Structures are given as structure tokens and as C-alpha cells.
């Protein structure tokens, strides 16, 4: 069939651009395959691996990557068709019907689909083991193993088939407008100077401004995540509008400034950019947003992971935490020590403390303590009361208080009062900073506040008597027993399990840090893994977009530079002009990305605070490192692709 021949001929003759397309789509095939193979992997799914958490994060990541793949494939195909349609137009002039042209494109697309699917699956399969190795180590779970099975490959094949069918439909649609006259006209048509669209540019600034404002002013609460999403959407829209319209406005203003404009470098770059902005504003905005997302995602997941140990300490100051309505007696404590011996775990620092159950409160009028059982927010304090005797025993101290006096430990919020009125009785208070809280002081919960009174009777008087307390337990009978453990994770988990079994009739909670640590690995390791995969994908996609941009622009600018060289632009000046132009074009998106990250910082802080995982030091370090690394990669891509551009321009 002549169509197959022509399709093959065109593929081989223009192999460079088709290779790039096939390479990038096989890369996407590979990454998508890795996501799906994790999603469908039976070893992760098993409940004892905390797999559901990982799976849901991977699923979110997959949706994102799949969307990115779809958009990118259309973008890359756009470059192909633009060049291919010229060739097809010539066939059309020579007398081929649209049906025959469609067939040629069909064969080409099919060949590219098959090749990129096979190559992509091959790459995916070879990197699958690496992906699982990383995942295994991040989650610290030896049971996770990659397997080669048919379903993921089938899903990927179908998914990319759908994308390719959509692309083919778009190709056909574009070809319908192809006729010899249009083609000849298109070749001759010079681009029109773009109009300055002040309104759209202004709108872009306003929308971006609102997005930034939301991000900066978000308070740490559970609605912070929702507001952050809104801010993200606004910033995306604003960035697009600003790059498309705002850049033209700015360039026109620059051109009006004669002193600036009539300098060799500015002259060439401002006029060139003015004309390319119309087509490339969207491209630059995409690069900017991809860089922004890479920065934000990587910063978030890496700092989460890096901070997870600290968060763990915050959540559980002691390795083992047992709470019950009766204090553990000597026999029980002895039994736990024996269980520890059986499990080869050394236990230390056993301590017991009896307190009231905690009550969420509000301090009104500066000193009035009011319980709050509904709409509890992070603003509330969580009040726990006990006797000074308990404190002394726990802390190894010898303090005393008067009957109308309370010691107050409130590490997260220093009280600005000397008195507190609780249940109608006013006490003098003395704030102390010396207390090893037995329970979580994570940021996610209301702030902890402990009160120590002279005796049990006073404590009883402090407790809430409000009927609205509902299911929240009240009363001075919460008994906490804690200890620390030394041993391997497996041994510690063994002891935790044994203690739980032993105290099975206990009516309180038994938590071990080791179990939490395992859950944490799934909670923070999963996002880290997915975040890194997404970060890599986005970086590669960005690099490819930049590469495509440079090639297409190289061909577009080639004629201009040729003319200028004839008129007297030297080789050196050409390089300088290209450099100045590229620098402006390239620094815009990355500068925009860094600014975006800067404004995302407060919003992320709020979200992280709401989740109780905020650590300024870690977060700032990670954000800075990620930015520097991305910037270096960006510069490398910029230099490499500029070289390609230069080679095209200089013929």
C-alpha cells in the first residue's frame, strides 16, 4: 500500500523530530506503568503493611501524572503536525485525497504508538525493580516486592491507546482545513504584531494577587487545605493570563522606551520576544507552573519525610504509653518487665501518673476558664489537672502549692494573667516550665495545659461539671504508665504486641512508638516516593517542553538572524543577542516559580501546622535546597537547549 510506504518514508526522513516524540511518549509510558504496577501490586495492598495509605497517595499521584501525560502528548503532537501538515499539503497538491492523507497519518500514529508502548514498557519494567527497592526502603517493609504481571501493562496499553486515538482525531480535524490554497497562504503569511491586552493583563495581576493574598493570610486550621487549593487555582489562572497578556504589555512599554530599545541586544530580543510571546506566553506559563509544582511538591514531601522523626517524638514522647482507669499494680508492672525480657527488649524510665481526663477550654475575659465541647479548634487549650503530689512523683521534685494556688504548665501559650477562675473559684497561678508531658504535644491537637493543685479535693473542684460534655470522659481517674524501650524495631513491635495482649482487658489505650513509626513510614514515605516520581516526571516534561520550544523558535528565528548577519551582525554579536534573549525568556518562568514558592510558603506553613507537622528549620532548608537543585538543572537544560537553538540559527 502506497500510504504505508509514504508514512514510513516520512518517518525515516524526519526521524529526528519523530524520535523525540517517541522518546518522550515512551518515557511517559514507563512512568505511568510504574504507577499502575504499584497500584495493582498485591504485596503493598495487604493490610498489615499500611498499604491502603500508600495506595491512595499513589492513586492521587497517578491521576496527576496521567493528566500531565495527556496534556503533554497533545502539546508535543502539535509540533509534529505543524511540520507534517506542510508535507501532507504537498501530497494534497499532487492529488491525494483527504482519505488517503488520513490513512498516512493513521499509519504513522500507529507505528509511533506501538514503538513507544513497547519501548516504554521495556523501560518501565527495567525501572520497576528500582522503584520497588526505593519504596521498600522508604517504607522499611521487606514484604513489598514488585511483580511482573499482565494487568498493569494492559491498562497502560489501553490508556495510551485512548490518548493516541484522541490525538488522531485532532489530527484529522486539523487536516480537514488543509487545502492547497490555505497551505500556500500559511507559508507566506507573516505573523501579526500582537495587541497589548491591558484588561486581560490587569485581570491576571488581580487574580494572581488574590491567590497570593489568600496564601499569605491563611490561618492554620483544617480549612487551610481548602483555601490553599483555591489559592493554587487562582495562581494557575493568574500566571497564565499574566504570561500571555502581561508580558506583551511590558514588552510594548519597553519598546516605547527608545533609549532602552535602540540598543543592539535589547533591540533584537524585545522585538523577537514581542512576536513570540503570543504563541509562547502559554508555553512559558506552563514551564513556570511546572517548575512551581515541582518546587512545592518536592519541598512538601521531603520536609515531611525529613521531619517525620521529630513529629514522631512530638506525637509520642515515650516508647510505650498505657492509659487506664486503674493504675497498673506491682504484679502488672512486673509482668511487663518479664515480657520485655522474653522479647529481648531493655525497658527503662517506667513512670506512672494519675491525672484528670483533659477538657478543651477557652479563657475568656483574661482569666475565666470555660469548657468548650463543640467546635473545638486549634485555638483552644486542652486542660488536664492533677495534684502536686503526682507532679513531684513523676518529675522527681519537691514542690508545694497553697490551697488557693495552682501551678500551670502551658508550653505552647504562656498565660498573660496571674489568676484563673475555674468553676467560680479564683486561684492565684504560678507558671512553670518544667514538666515532661506524657502525651502528644503535636501541633495538630489543641495546646496542652496542665494544672497542679494542692490535693485531690481541689482537683475535683477544678473538673468540669457541665452536662454538655457528652461522651468526653471526665473525672480524676486517668492513669498513665509509660516506659522507653531499647532493641530492634522487630523486637519492640513484639513487646508492644505482647503488652497489648496481656492488658487486653484494660479499658484504656495502649500505644507504642514502634507501631506509630511503622504507620509514619507509610504516611510520609508514600508521599515522598510519589512526590519524587512526580517531581522527576515534571522536570523531564519541562525539559522536553523547553527543548521543543527552542527547536521551533530556532527555525522561526533562523531567517531573522541570517538577515541580520548579512546586514552586519557578527557571529559574536549573534551569540550575545541570543544569550540576552534566551536569558530573559528563560529567567521569567523560573523567577516566577521562585516567587510562587515564596507565596506558597505561608500557605504550606498553615497546612502543615494544621496537620501538626510544621518544622520551620527543616522546611526552610528543604525549600532552599530543592530550589537550588532545580535551578541548577534548569540552567543545564537552558545551556544545552540554547546550544541546539544556536546551531539551528547559525545554519
Amino acid at each position, binding site marked *: 500500500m502506497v500510504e504505508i510506504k509514504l508514512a514510513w518514508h516520512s518517518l525515516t526522513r524526519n526521524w529526528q523530530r519523530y524520535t523525540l516524540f517517541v522518546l518522550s511518549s515512551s518515557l511517559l509510558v514507563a512512568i505511568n506503568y510504574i504507577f499502575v504496577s504499584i497500584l495493582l501490586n498485591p504485596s503493598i495492598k495487604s493490610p498489615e503493611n499500611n498499604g491502603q495509605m500508600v495506595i491512595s497517595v499513589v492513586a492521587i499521584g497517578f491521576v496527576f501524572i496521567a493528566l500531565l501525560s495527556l496534556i503533554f502528548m497533545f502539546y508535543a503532537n502539535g509540533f509534529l503536525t505543524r511540520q507534517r501538515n506542510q508535507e501532507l499539503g504537498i501530497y494534497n497538491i499532487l492529488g491525494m485525497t483527504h482519505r488517503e492523507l488520513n490513512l498516512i497519518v493513521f499509519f504513522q500514529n500507529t507505528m509511533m504508538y506501538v514503538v513507544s508502548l513497547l519501548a516504554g514498557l521495556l523501560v518501565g519494567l527495567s525501572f520497576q525493580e528500582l522503584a520497588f527497592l526505593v519504596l521498600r526502603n522508604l517504607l522499611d517493609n521487606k514484604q513489598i516486592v514488585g511483580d511482573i504481571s499482565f494487568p498493569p501493562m494492559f491498562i497502560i496499553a489501553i490508556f495510551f491507546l485512548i490518548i493516541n486515538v484522541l490525538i488522531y482525531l485532532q489530527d484529522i480535524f486539523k487536516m480537514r482545513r488543509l487545502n492547497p490554497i490555505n497551505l500556500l497562504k500559511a507559508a507566506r*503569511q507573516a505573523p501579526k504584531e500582537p495587541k497589548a491586552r491591558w484588561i486581560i493583563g490587569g485581570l491576571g495581576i488581580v487574580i494572581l494577587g488574590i491567590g497570593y493574598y489568600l496564601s499569605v493570610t491563611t490561618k492554620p486550621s483544617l480549612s487551610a487545605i481548602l483555601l490553599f487549593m483555591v489559592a493554587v487555582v487562582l495562581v494557575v489562572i493568574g500566571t497564565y493570563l499574566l504570561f500571555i497578556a502581561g508580558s506583551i504589555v511590558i514588552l510594548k512599554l519597553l519598546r516605547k522606551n527608545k533609549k532602552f530599545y535602540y540598543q543592539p541586544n535589547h533591540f533584537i530580543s524585545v522585538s523577537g520576544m514581542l512576536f513570540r510571546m503570543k504563541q509562547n506566553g502559554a508555553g512559558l506559563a506552563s514551564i513556570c507552573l511546572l517548575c512551581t509544582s515541582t518546587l512545592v511538591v518536592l519541598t512538601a514531601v521531603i520536609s515531611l519525610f525529613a521531619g517525620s522523626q521529630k513529629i514522631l517524638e512530638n506525637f509520642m514522647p515515650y516508647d510505650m504509653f498505657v492509659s487506664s482507669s486503674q493504675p497498673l499494680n506491682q504484679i502488672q508492672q512486673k509482668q511487663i518487665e518479664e515480657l520485655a525480657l522474653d522479647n529481648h527488649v531493655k525497658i527503662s524510665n517506667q513512670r506512672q501518673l494519675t491525672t484528670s481526663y483533659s477538657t478543651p477550654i477557652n479563657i475568656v475575659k483574661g482569666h475565666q476558664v470555660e469548657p468548650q465541647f463543640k467546635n473545638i479548634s486549634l485555638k483552644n487549650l486542652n486542660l488536664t489537672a492533677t495534684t502536686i503530689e503526682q507532679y513531684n512523683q513523676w518529675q522527681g521534685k519537691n514542690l508545694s502549692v497553697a490551697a488557693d494556688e495552682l501551678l500551670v504548665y502551658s508550653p505552647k501559650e504562656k498565660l498573660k494573667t496571674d489568676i484563673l477562675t475555674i468553676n467560680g473559684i479564683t486561684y492565684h497561678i504560678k507558671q512553670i516550665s518544667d514538666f515532661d508531658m506524657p502525651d502528644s504535644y503535636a501541633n495538630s491537637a489543641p495546646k496542652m495545659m496542665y494544672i497542679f493543685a494542692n490535693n485531690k479535693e481541689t482537683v475535683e473542684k477544678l473538673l468540669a461539671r457541665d452536662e454538655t460534655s457528652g461522651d468526653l470522659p471526665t473525672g480524676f481517674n486517668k492513669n498513665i504508665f509509660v516506659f522507653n524501650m531499647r532493641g530492634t524495631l522487630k523486637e519492640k513491635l513484639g513487646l508492644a504486641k505482647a503488652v497489648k495482649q496481656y492488658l487486653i482487658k484494660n479499658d484504656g489505650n495502649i500505644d507504642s512508638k514502634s507501631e506509630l513509626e511503622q504507620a509514619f513510614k507509610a504516611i510520609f514515605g508514600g508521599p515522598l516516593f510519589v512526590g519524587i516520581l512526580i517531581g522527576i516526571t515534571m522536570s523531564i516534561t519541562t525539559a522536553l517542553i523547553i527543548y521543543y520550544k527552542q527547536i521551533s523558535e530556532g527555525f522561526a528565528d533562523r531567517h531573522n538572524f541570517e538577515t541580520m548577519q*548579512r546586514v552586519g551582525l557578527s*557571529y559574536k554579536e549573534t551569540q550575545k543577542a541570543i544569550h540576552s534573549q534566551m536569558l530573559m525568556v528563560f529567567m521569567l518562568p523560573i523567577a516566577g516559580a521562585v516567587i510562587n514558592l515564596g507565596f506558597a510558603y505561608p500557605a504550606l506553613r498553615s497546612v502543615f501546622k494544621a496537620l501538626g507537622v510544621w518544622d520551620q528549620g527543616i522546611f526552610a532548608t528543604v525549600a532552599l535546597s530543592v530550589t537550588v537543585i532545580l535551578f541548577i538543572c534548569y540552567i543545564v537544560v537552558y545551556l544545552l537547549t540554547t546550544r541546539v537553538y544556536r546551531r539551528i540559527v547559525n545554519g
Partner: protein
Amino acid sequence: MTLLELQHIQKSYQEGLKSKVALKDISFGIESGEYVAIMGESGAGKTTLLNIMATLDKPTSGKIELNGTDLKSLSENEAAHFRRKELGFVFQNFDLLDTFNNRDNIFLPLVLSKVPEKEMQARLTGLAEQLEITDLLDRYPSEVSGGQKQRVAAARALITQPELILADEPTGALDSHSSAQLLELFDQVNQAGQTILMVTHSALTASYSKRTLFIKDGIIYHQLNRGELSQKEYLDKISASLNSIINGGSVN
């Protein structure tokens, strides 16, 4: 005074293993204020010769001097500076940049030489009037006709006040009316003392010049002086020469 001097210019290209001779032995001189046409069929070596005179290419051997500068010894960088100072170009396909409006297209060589904006504007005002393009300055090349484009290109060549204007088939893409208009303009400019050298295969275009060199197979084959002839009479003489060259006969 001799402005441009070529002595025994030879140019050969490597084509695979064989070398192809484009120019065999070209020698001629152009005096300041002259208006010379170089004629020849395609493949005769016209473009190679023009590229060498334009410092875009270098001869394999021989000597070429413009105003005492040895063009062969110029580095790429020096050549570029030399081009924008001493030479003005008019091309067949105009070679205007679509991303600049006509004014900025004309300014291009001056901007590259960092001429202040005020002076550029001052130089342009008179020139634009002379070329009747004042109304076109704020438009883009894509928005004006071919004849107008070529006048804009001529303005770009003239605004640097070059020693020599090189025109490569300047009427090649123009209709007869626009061609006549452009050639009359060249005539005027030449009257004012501007040296012009153009390369063409059109006898009509060549007939506007003062002297015509015929190039064939890499050598100057023949040369005609207009003397006191009218443009029409000169055209007949050029046509006759062309005929005899094509027929292989020797001329004088």
C-alpha cells in the same frame, strides 16, 4: 579613485572528493561614484562573486580590496563591522524582518553600530521623503507591497551612508512599474555620488547602469560602457551582447 579592486580572484568549492571551480580568474576595478552591473546566467558565478565582495565569503586565491582594506584578511568579526559601516545591501527577496516595523528595519544597521536615536531619526527623515516611504514607516513589512518593501530595503542600505551599495537581483521580485521606480531611484542616488554595484540577469535592469560586466563560466567574458547612450540604446547593445554570448560567438 579606485574604490573596489579585484585581482585574479579564484574560488573553488570542495564537493565530495572533487573541487568545483566557481570563479576562475576575475579581475576588475570600480571607481568611486560608478554604477556597475554584473550580468550572467544562473550558475555563472554571479552570487559567489557578490558574496566575496560582500565579505560573506572569501576567495580561494587572489586579491580584493575595498577602499584600501584587504577583505581577505578580515576576521569574521571585523567583516561584520565592515559590512555594516561600508556596505549597503539590497536583496531580491528584500530580506526585511517581520518582527520589526519598517522604521526599525531601516534602523537595524545603525542600532547595531550604536548610533544615537536622535541621529538615526535625523538621517531617516530626509531619506524617507526621497524614497516616498514616510507614511509606511510605522507599518510592518508584511503590510506593504513588494515595491514598497524594496524601497524600505533601499533605505536600510542607504541610511548608513555606505561606500558601496551591493544589490543582488534588486528587481527580481518586482513588477515592471516597481522595477522602473526602484532603478530610477538608484539612478538618482548614483547622480548624488553613491557607488552602486548590482548583480542581475535582466538586461533591462542592467541597462540602467553605466557599465556592464558579463560573467560566464567563472571569468569576465565581456564588458560594455554606456557612454553617452540612452537607456534604450544601451539596452539594445546589452541584448545584442547577450545573444552573441549565448550563441557562443566571440564579441569584439
